[in-house]
């Protein structure tokens, strides 16, 4: 099989029972200094029918961006991050002075993941609404784009290949070294490991593996595999970001397929 054929097959890989628990598509742009809380109210009015719940959260702040969340001229309180959601569907919009994000969340176990195509279509639809709102009501623009992110959070629950912490190596073979350090005197009780891979000049992939337990009443022991592609479009434009996300999705997909065990993909997650 040629490399091109291999890539195209990788790109098409889908699962009937994927472990994905959350998908986040985020774009960070030049801070909109004119954006105020009253504008957010006007924005919510536009999307209220679909997103009737609004909550405030602390902004996602990188080390370099802390200054943009301090009070702007004419602002009494710093602008927070806003969540817009609904109990009727799993989408969540997040807005802050320098970012727009859309999350798909598995709110119930029996909900099928709609696949990336649906989530990214929703992202761009909502992004167009927000972009037009910023232009019309705030007189600003979302250009220039600094950073794009595509994040998949996979929750790996107990299955026939993974019944103890150390057996996580059956699902994620490359962390076998950590598991093999277990002996009679000690047992693997937790794990939090991050690796960063460079795909190209504009695209990096973080891969985070965690072992732990749910915070809810079940206290179920689970593993988390978080794959986050991040980088910026080559010309720092929103238009080019579309191409960036396509490349990012391919990189995330390929990373997942190579990092997880083939038998688990087929037998547990039902790769088709």
């Amino acid at each position: 099989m040629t490399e091109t054929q291999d890539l195209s097959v990788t790109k098409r890989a889908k699962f009937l029972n994927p472990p994905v628990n959350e998908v986040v598509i985020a774009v960070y742009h030049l801070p909109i200094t004119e954006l105020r809380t009253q504008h957010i109210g006007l924005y919510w009015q536009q999307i209220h029918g679909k997103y009737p719940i609004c909550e405030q959260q602390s902004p996602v702040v990188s080390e370099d961006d802390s200054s943009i969340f301090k009070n702007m001229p004419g602002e009494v309180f710093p602008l927070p991050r806003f969540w817009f959601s609904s109990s009727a569907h799993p989408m969540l919009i997040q807005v802050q002075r320098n970012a727009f994000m859309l999350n798909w969340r598995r709110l119930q176990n029996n909900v099928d993941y709609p696949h990336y195509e649906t989530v990214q279509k929703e992202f761009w639809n909502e992004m167009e609404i927000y972009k037009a709102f910023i232009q019309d009501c705030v007189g600003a623009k979302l250009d220039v784009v600094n950073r794009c992110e595509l994040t998949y959070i996979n929750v790996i629950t107990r299955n026939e290949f993974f019944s103890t912490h150390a057996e996580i190596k059956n699902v994620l073979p490359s962390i076998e070294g950590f598991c093999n350090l277990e002996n009679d005197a000690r047992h693997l009780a937790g794990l939090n490991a991050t690796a960063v891979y460079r795909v190209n000049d504009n695209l990096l992939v973080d891969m985070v593996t965690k072992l732990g337990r749910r915070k809810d009443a079940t206290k179920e022991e689970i593993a988390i595999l978080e794959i986050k592609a991040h980088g910026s479009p080559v010309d720092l434009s929103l238009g080019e970001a579309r191409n960036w996300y396509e490349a990012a999705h391919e990189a995330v997909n390929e990373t997942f397929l190579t990092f997880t065990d083939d038998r688990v993909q087929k037998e547990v997650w039902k790769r088709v």
Partner: protein
Amino acid sequence: MEARMSYQLEPITSANTSLSDSYFTVTYSRDVPIPEAQLVELIQRAKRIAPISFDNAIDPDYSSKQKIFDAVKDLYLSNNSRNRQIADRLISLHRDALAEDEHIDPNSISQFAEFFLSYGHIGLPKITLTPDGTLRVRWLHGPGNFIAIEFAGKPLAKVVLELPRGDETAQYFFSEPIEKVIPVARAIGASFA
């Protein structure tokens, strides 16, 4: 403030935008919870550790794009309408350069931004990119009457100055540290209006 056990183990390569962590706790020890006082100490210690920038360490081209964005952001946020125009021009030049398979010298960008952030009161110049990828600005006042600065990204910026002297044109070519360009050029008679 929520003192989650997973706090100090957040991925340090990028900000966390997901919600999944809010219902998941990384296991340190199966049955022995960390005492609250010790947890607070752990968090304080984690906060004291200087963050590592993986992006800069791994991606050699990261600094070029990031410097453009940082320069644009700093100019844009400087509360100066002239600087916003300069920021727009800078991003436009970046995109034009890419279309020509060229790029702007990252050191030139930093020097350029520093200059205009330091001198908020001088006029808006014409801004172009040299074949070497450095930024050049010019204030044109008429034939034989202009000043041009090339931000070569080195400690000294290159200056070309032409001034009318009666029927003749005086020409000056010199290099100066960026902070001395304006006082030296003004002493000769240059205008940055």
